[in-house]
């Protein structure tokens, strides 16, 4: 487990100097952002995916899905979907804005022109920006470093992402919990799906990988993966 998966802020090495794949894993940890046991919102996001997994698994066994004896219905799904959506939205949109600025307005008359942000252009520079946003959205706002980020653009954008990425995923799951708590408990029967089985765990895992991790696949491809494959002959 690395620092980004546990969100505890301790750093073992300068991320900027790690090999591309190592840096990529650090980011992947944040993209997944559902490590149970991590500080902060790890559990909350896990819980959101759990709700989605329960819903799909419930359907697969032919029963209206229930979680801890409460039926999961349209309103819970709406909230869970929104929170699951928020995560790639913040990180990808943030990185997209930065990428756009570098590509199209490199010499904008801001306090620091976009072209001056990057010490390492190309794939590595992309990784730096992706990490910056990912950490703001899903971690502690730490940097991959190597990015000229102490300027208005980065401070403002990551600040905004930090606030949204921090508090909305807390409100959402609490709202779901509130809705579920107000529901009647369905007594367990032979047809009830148990959520503490290996199979169910596997489903949740697969869902997190496909929904959270794979959403970032194109971004990872341009950043760490491109850098990695360029290094490996």
């Amino acid at each position, binding site marked *: 487990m690395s620092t980004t998966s546990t969100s505890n802020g301790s750093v073992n090495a300068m991320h900027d100097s790690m090999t591309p794949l190592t840096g990529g894993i650090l980011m992947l940890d944040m993209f997944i952002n559902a490590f149970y046991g991590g500080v902060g919102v790890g559990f909350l996001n896990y819980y959101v995916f759990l709700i*989605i997994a329960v*819903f*799909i*698994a419930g*359907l*697969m*066994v*032919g*029963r*209206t899905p229930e979680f801890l*004896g409460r039926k*999961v*219905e*349209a309103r*819970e*799904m*709406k909230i869970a*979907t929104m929170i*699951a*959506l928020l995560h*790639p*939205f913040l990180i*990808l*949109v943030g990185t*997209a*804005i930065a*990428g*756009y600025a*570098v*590509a*199209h307005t490199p010499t904008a008359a801001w306090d620091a022109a976009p072209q001056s942000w990057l010490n390492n252009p190309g794939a590595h520079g*992309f990784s730096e920006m992706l990490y910056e946003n990912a950490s703001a959205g899903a971690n502690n706002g730490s940097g991959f470093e190597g990015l000229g980020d102490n300027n208005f653009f980065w401070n403002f954008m990551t600040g905004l992402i930090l606030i949204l990425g921090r508090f909305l995923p807390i409100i959402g799951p609490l709202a779901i919990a509130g809705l579920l708590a107000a529901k*009647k*408990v*369905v*007594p367990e*029967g*032979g*047809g*009830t*799906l*148990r959520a503490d089985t290996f*199979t169910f765990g*596997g*489903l949740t895992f*697969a*869902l997190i990988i*496909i*929904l959270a991790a*794979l*959403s970032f*696949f*194109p971004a990872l*491809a*341009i950043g760490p*993966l*491109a850098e990695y*494959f*360029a290094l*490996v002959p």
Partner: protein
Amino acid sequence: MESSSSSLFPREQVREALVQSFVKLDPRIMLRNPVMFTVEIGTVVMLLVTLYSLIGGDASQGSTGYNAVIFLLLLITLLFANFAEAIAEARGKAQASSLRKMREDTPARLRMPDGSTKTIRGSELRKGDVFICETGDTIPTDGEIIEGLASIDESAITGESAPVIREAGGDRSSVTGGTRVLSDRVVVMVTGDPGSSFLDRMIALVEGASRQKTPNEIALTILLAGFTLVFLIVCVTLKPFADYANTPITIAAFISLFVCLIPTTIGGLLSAIGISGMDRALRANVITKSGRAVETAGDVDVLLLDKTGTITIGNRKATAFHPAPGVDRATFIRSCALSSLSDETPEGKSIVELAGADITRGLSLQGAALIAFTAQTRTSGVDLGAGIRIRKGAQDALRKLSEQVGNTFPQEVDAEVKRIAQNGGTPLVVAENEKVIGCIELQDIIKPGISERFERLRKMGVKTVMVTGDNPLTAKFIAEKAGVDDFIAEATPEDKMAYIKKEQQQGRLVAMMGDGTNDAPALAQADVGVAMNSGTQAAKEAGNMVDLDNDPTKLIEVVEIGKQLLMTRGTLTTFSIANDVAKYFAIVPALFMASIPALGALNIMRLHSAESAILSAVIFNAIIIPLLIPLALKGVTYRPIGASAILRRNLLIYGLGGVIVPFIGIKLIDLGVALFF
């Protein structure tokens, strides 16, 4: 029941569905399905791009031919999805219309304004029409008697055998379609137009005009819309990423990536699955009033089943006469036979049969009045002209009757009743002028194979409850023998209602089947109420399904259909999402291969070229929809093997399969597509 199961796609239905596939391209209809609506937008954009590259001659977006092919593939994807919905609708409609035709063939003798009569089909009767029914005629449709009086056999409707008198004027003037005139002649005015029947409602439901998404379908649509948005973000943000990496990505590639990633498979098949759920119910001869009811049936926890006809073979047979002490045996048998002579119920007939021809031959009902069974008195019998009143019924009813006038209930009869009940029989106590004269023993026969069905239900997690008018002893015996989990003995409609409410308060969903007006409140209270077609209008209005076969075991099938419906949705969603893994690996390397050659390493399928990779993924995405239509229509097979085992099985087939199949499929298509590059 299995009338048209020979082919999934009869020709005329396919033709109709093909036409509908194009009609359904209307964006206003498409908007109901957010996933496919976004595909439609993508298709329109591709059309514009194709025209632009054709007219403008600008090749920066790829060749005109390539763009045109992508446009066509997207259009085909849309048409496939529409076809899935249309074919499901066509099947449902065909099934419903054939049922309707069957029921409308009762002939009716229409009275013309000039007084002459003309025979027409029952279906041609309109509100306000007047028809005539005589002895032996079946009444073609619901109406009100405006002239005359007749005795009518309503057993087909009420299940009660004693004929009822219906006459013009007053409360007893209405007649129901499907009942039979036993004697005399009535003139009836039609009270309702055809088109308001359950079948008509069902057809409207299938046709989509009044089809509403079920709660579960709504939740799934939200989830799918969420997935669509996630992938929209992925694709939109890819543009600045690509700009940064100096990689030009064509609009065709963006739209292809987007369409492949969003869950089009389940999105395209979602409504077909819902419709086919209703259709499968219809094939089992169950008419549902809403798709929601079928879905709820899959969730049912408690099943209330009537004993008679469901658990035991409908007819109980009289097996012995037990006169009370001091009552002459022959006289007792004579009284029993007299009270049953005009009793058309199987029980009544079997009593006459047991009494034997020697006794019954000399009996006459001259001047006698028949006393029909009612749910309140729970007795039936006959008032002979000579001031003799014979009644028979359940022990508690007769005890009340005799003790009301100060007679004691003979202890010997009481003991006999207990003995019969303990042995699973049904005692029928007989009284003459409110004095108990003995009892008749009736025996129940439990249906073969029924206990296996209950075992199956238990594995599904459904609790079975037997409802019976029998006394607790008999009920317990039969309940144990048949293997039901619980029973309600000496059940009154109020008891049923109370039981349903109790279970519902504990959060369980209850299904029940009923036929009489008495059952109406309970049918309405139950989460799934199946009324028998032979039942009263009130019962049919109260329930949310009607069983045309009047088969009480149908509830079990309905539960399975409901479960199948949910499972089909779940498995196809899983399959659709799992497919994304392969599609990512097909398209993402293709996007960047040109400008970042290093990323060619991600092309683990070794697809021929960027164009062929994108085309293959889009083609796979399109053809998987029609390939899965049969599964959507037939439903995933349900096996009662416990929830965790089902999940494991379905995850293996549709989850793991969903990851692997597109890798193979896209690679194979790519091998074919590569021939053109």
